[in-house]
């Protein structure tokens, strides 16, 4: 069985393939899993029953981790010294950070491999415990489900059919093996007259006789039946959701249209854009790209669109690469544009600097009508981000045709509430500080339309109340960064401005998201534009019905702010006019050249990271950098009390969890005693009383073997109470109280046993009286026979609820043939 559970878990290993890059990540995991299962198998074979198996398994994992991950610094490559352990912990932390910081697939650094290997070792150990110790291999399915849900949740593109099938087959094989082992444990069992057991392989083991051929046929038929049933189960699980429209998901449809299966499935590879921004703060100013354009005032270059806010960070929904989203010259129309644009087409040729690390996402002006770049590129239809799954070449040259459709303030003023947007860009996490909402309401009180509200919000940020600082004071760890930025110190850089405005816009009912990329940069002498990492920027995009997504600029520009930032005309409010200059980007961008050198440190060049971040996961990381709305000093009052409800809820939750077994057990007992007191007593009542007695005995740490008849059980209990599982019945006990139960309880036990016996074996069971009273007497007698510790444990952790404590054939020599 240990090997069976190992095989089952190994079959599930390919599931993770889509999450990790690099071919060797599974090797340490494989070694660890084999070690865990091997320890279990050998130890159980040896019959040396001193230490619990999980302890040995943990030891094996610890010993293996050293040569696998810290072999170079350990003596002999094996011995775990303190230095090695510290190193391992560091590697583990790096791995965790990498995984936290990156969207799948992560690259297989040592840390990531260690994390995966440890997690799988733990899972294998758990599977071993469930399948072998607890003898309920069905529950291994829960572990597999957990394993399956990791790629499903993280990747969003579903599972490949091959790993999923392998996983299912492994699980079924484990179940089958368990059936087989169980069938053999008892030797020959007389087949039921009705032949209902005949189909189960292994359950019938009879000496060869004249009709052994018929039996073999039966076995073959049984195997065929089981296989068919299993195949049908797997098939149904996959196909039924397709039949039901409500269950039909994008994932399944994607699988159906053959792209994933046909092309082997592409998953977008990117690191977390926000992490990139943060890291770039420490980078020096450096040329990122140059471009040549026909436009007088080129727009910002957008790389990422972040549309999910978790309370602290803005993050990107994972994007999918499929044939349907492949860029074949033209890009899809942006959301919210009713018709194809009629405006003039502007051509821009962009050259990425050869020194710039690879970019998996292209920095593009919005809206790009066509993109012509070497290699395979995909466009996310919702955000129009353009990305690749291959590793993009450095020094890429590509051509973009853009259409400048810039609405006027008047046009925007007439727009109503957004209706046509797919996906909800107004979601906010629960638990935002109510003061933010109050602030938003106060700012937008006067505004009648979404547009006016947006303008009001932008003016709040650019009105001078906020200070632009690339190196803001850090936020106290207990403070809400958003509140701190908006209400406390009001110091930050573009991330905080953009993130905060997007949050407030969502609160004001305007769909909003955060875009990350570059400002237009600086014009060079030869007519080209140069963009440096100092031009990295983040800004909110707000959605207006009929106009689509529009850029706003809450970050202060010019010398006191982000140098090359510019405020779009349409966002200045209708009173300022500007209707006559569609497509122009305000003058601030002109100011930028001189400032550019001051800015380099401020905003990230997001594209640096894609392949690097994982390896560098060990960098110090703290709150202010981790979020768009991070900086500032937390208000102690708000921050100090904010944890209270959470902690309270957590405490209540933990408490509930602790008493849950007790509650369930009490419920069971209550329902049984109620059944006893109601109506006349018969066979069913006798069984009920007996079951309750059995469960209580188990709860109190006693033994209950199915080979013991009711009266034998009653005698044993009356003689020595519920003795611990390891004790000889009636033998000498150490520690726990070992008094026999009181005489009246012994009599009650006897009467219960006779009632049960009669209910089981008599031709017409009698109607025993006083079952309920007898049960209570017997139960209190059993309680009295054990110590207070056992009583407490019986209440809090009733063993009768655990399937592996249920009575089962006692192990021992006998007709076991394996």
């Amino acid at each position, binding site marked *: 069985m240990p090997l069976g559970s190992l095989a089952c878990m190994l079959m599930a290993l390919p599931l993770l393939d889509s999450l990790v890059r690099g071919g060797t990540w599974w090797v340490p995991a494989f070694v660890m899993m084999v070690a865990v299962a091997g320890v279990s198998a050998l130890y159980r074979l040896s019959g040396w029953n001193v230490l619990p198996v999980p302890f040995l398994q943990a030891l094996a994992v610890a010993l293996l981790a050293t040569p696998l991950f810290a072999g170079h610094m350990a003596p002999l490559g094996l011995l775990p010294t303190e230095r090695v352990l510290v190193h391992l912990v560091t590697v583990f932390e790096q791995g965790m950070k990498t995984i936290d910081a990156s969207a799948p697939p992560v690259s297989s650094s040592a840390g990531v491999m260690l994390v995966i290997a440890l997690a799988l070792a733990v899972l294998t150990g758990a599977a071993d415990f469930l399948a072998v110790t607890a003898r309920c291999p069905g529950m291994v399915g829960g572990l597999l489900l957990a394993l399956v849900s990791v790629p499903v949740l993280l990747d969003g593109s579903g599972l490949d059919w091959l790993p999923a099938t392998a996983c299912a087959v492994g699980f079924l094989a484990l179940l089958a093996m368990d059936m087989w082992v169980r069938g053999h444990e008892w030797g020959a069992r007389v087949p039921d007259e009705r032949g209902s057991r005949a189909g189960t392989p292994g359950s019938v083991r009879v000496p060869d006789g004249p009709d052994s051929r018929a039996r073999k046929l039966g076995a073959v038929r049984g195997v065929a039946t089981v296989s068919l049933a299993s195949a049908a189960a797997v098939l149904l699980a996959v196909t039924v959701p397709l039949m039901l429209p409500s269950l039909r998901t994008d994932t399944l449809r994607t699988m159906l249209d053959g792209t994933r299966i046909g092309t082997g499935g592409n998953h977008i590879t990117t690191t977390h854009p926000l992490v990139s921004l943060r890291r770039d703060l420490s980078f020096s100013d450096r040329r990122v790209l140059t471009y040549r354009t026909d436009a007088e005032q080129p727009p910002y270059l957008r790389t990422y669109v972040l549309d999910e806010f978790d309370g602290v960070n803005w993050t990107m929904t994972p994007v999918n690469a499929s044939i349907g989203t492949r860029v074949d010259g033209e890009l899809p129309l942006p959301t919210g544009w009713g018709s194809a644009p009629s405006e003039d087409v502007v051509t821009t040729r962009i050259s990425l600097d050869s020194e710039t690390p690879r970019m998996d996402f292209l920095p593009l002006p919005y809206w790009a009508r066509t993109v012509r770049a070497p290699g395979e590129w995909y466009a996310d239809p919702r955000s129009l981000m353009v990305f690749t799954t291959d590793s993009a070449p450095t020094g890429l040259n590509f051509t973009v045709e853009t259409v400048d459709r810039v609405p006027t303030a008047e046009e925007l003023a007439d727009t109503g509430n957004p209706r046509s947007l797919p996906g909800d860009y107004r979601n906010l996490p629960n638990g935002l500080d109510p003061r933010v909402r109050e602030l938003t309401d106060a700012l937008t009180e006067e505004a009648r339309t979404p547009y006016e509200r947006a303008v009001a919000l932008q003016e709040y940020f650019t009105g001078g109340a906020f200070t632009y600082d690339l190196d803001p004071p850090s936020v106290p760890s207990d403070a809400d960064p958003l509140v701190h930025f908006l209400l406390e110190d009001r110091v930050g850089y573009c991330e905080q401005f953009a993130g905060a405005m997007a949050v407030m816009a969502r609160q004001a009912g305007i769909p909003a998201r955060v875009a990350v990329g570059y400002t237009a940069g600086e014009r060079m002498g030869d007519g080209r534009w140069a963009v440096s990492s100092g031009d990295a920027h983040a800004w909110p995009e707000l959605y207006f019905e009929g106009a689509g997504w529009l850029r706003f600029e809450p970050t202060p520009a010019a010398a006191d702010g982000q140098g090359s930032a510019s405020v779009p005309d349409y966002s200045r409010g209708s009173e300022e006019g500007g209707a006559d200059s569609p497509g122009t980007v305000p003058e601030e961008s002109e100011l930028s050249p001189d400032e550019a050198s001051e800015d380099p440190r401020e905003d990230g060049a997001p594209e640096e990271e894609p392949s690097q971040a994982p390896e560098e996961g060990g960098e110090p990381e703290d709150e202010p950098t981790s979020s768009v709305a991070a900086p500032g000093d937390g208000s102690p009052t708000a921050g100090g009390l904010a944890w209270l409800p959470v902690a309270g809820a957590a405490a209540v939750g933990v408490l509930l969890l602790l008493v849950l077994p007790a509650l369930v057990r009490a419920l069971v007992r209550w329902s049984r005693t109620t059944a006893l007191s109601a109506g006349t007593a018969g066979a069913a009542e006798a069984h009920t009383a007996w079951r309750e007695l059995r469960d209580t005995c188990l709860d109190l740490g006693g033994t209950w073997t199915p080979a013991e008849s009711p009266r034998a059980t009653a005698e044993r209990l009356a003689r020595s109470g519920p003795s611990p599982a390891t004790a000889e019945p009636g033998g000498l006990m150490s520690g726990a109280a070992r008094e026999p139960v009181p005489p009246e309880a012994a009599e009650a036990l006897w009467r219960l046993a*006779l009632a049960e016996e009669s209910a089981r074996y008599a031709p017409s069971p009698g109607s025993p009286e006083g079952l309920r009273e007898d049960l209570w007497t017997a139960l209190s007698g059993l309680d009295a026979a054990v110590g207070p510790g056992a009583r407490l444990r019986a209440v809090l952790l009733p063993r009768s609820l655990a399937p592996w404590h249920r009575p089962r054939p006692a192990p021992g020599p006998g007709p076991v043939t394996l």
Partner: protein
Amino acid sequence: MSLGTHHGGHGGGVQEDVGEIVAVADRVRGAIETVIEGKPEVLRLALTVLLAEGHLLIEDVPGVGKTMLAKALGRAVDCSVQRVQFTPDLLPSDITGVSVYHQDRREFEFNPGPVFANIVLGDEINRASPKTQAALLECMAERQVSVDGQTRALERPFMVVATQNPADMEGTYALPEAQRDRFMARVSVGYPAPQAELDMIDSHSSRSPLDDLAPVTSAAQIRDLADRVHSVHVAPGMRRYVVDLVNATRTSPELRLGASPRATLHLVRAARAYAALDGRHYVVPDDVQALAVPVLAHRLLPGPEAQMERLSPEQIVAKLVARLPVPGPQ
């Protein structure tokens, strides 16, 4: 433990039958206990076999009261008792009887042998030659005697109580498996407890207490009770339990020879009688468990491994019993 609360609401008939069995059994038991003290389990087993119409094999070292037990049983029931002392020169006809030619009447007349009795004591049965043993054992199985082409049925109740010394004693012919299989149960008397032995000195010093033993029941009554034992209920689960147990002896790697189907029948019949003796009209697992060793063990041959580990068939059967789950609720 016997707190004496007997259950079962099955209507009158069966319950009364069972009650009479208990009453009669108690009388017989009381009578025999005046002769053999401190062996209630052995007595109970002997009564069980009597009511189940089986044959009993008493195996033990000499002098522990094997013959005394058999004699007391025969004396307590008012029926014909014959005793055969098996010796190496005993002939089959000495058991079954012979046809003697009468000169005056000019015909053969059958002189029935000692086997024509209700209770036959076969003393030291393993001292006779196999041929003679076989003659007795044939009568045991078929409950009839065939001599000179004539078949004569034996009267009910017919019970052979054979005693034998352990197989390794001098001058013995061990009973072959096929013949051991005909005995329903084998029992060892065992040495008496010290107190019982002390009492024995007093009671046996002057005269044999067997002389004072008066019959407490009749052959007709035993016949009647044996009929009633057949009506004791064996639940379907219990039948399976018995079959599973017997099957386990056949598949156990520790046993070279398992129990026969005849053993299954014997076990069920004995369990019925055992239950009736307990005042129950249905069989419970405890009956089967208590009888498993006496009924099954003498039919089994341990395998080589068990012999190396010095595991006796009794121990193996006890282990099987301890592992086999009892039938649960239907």
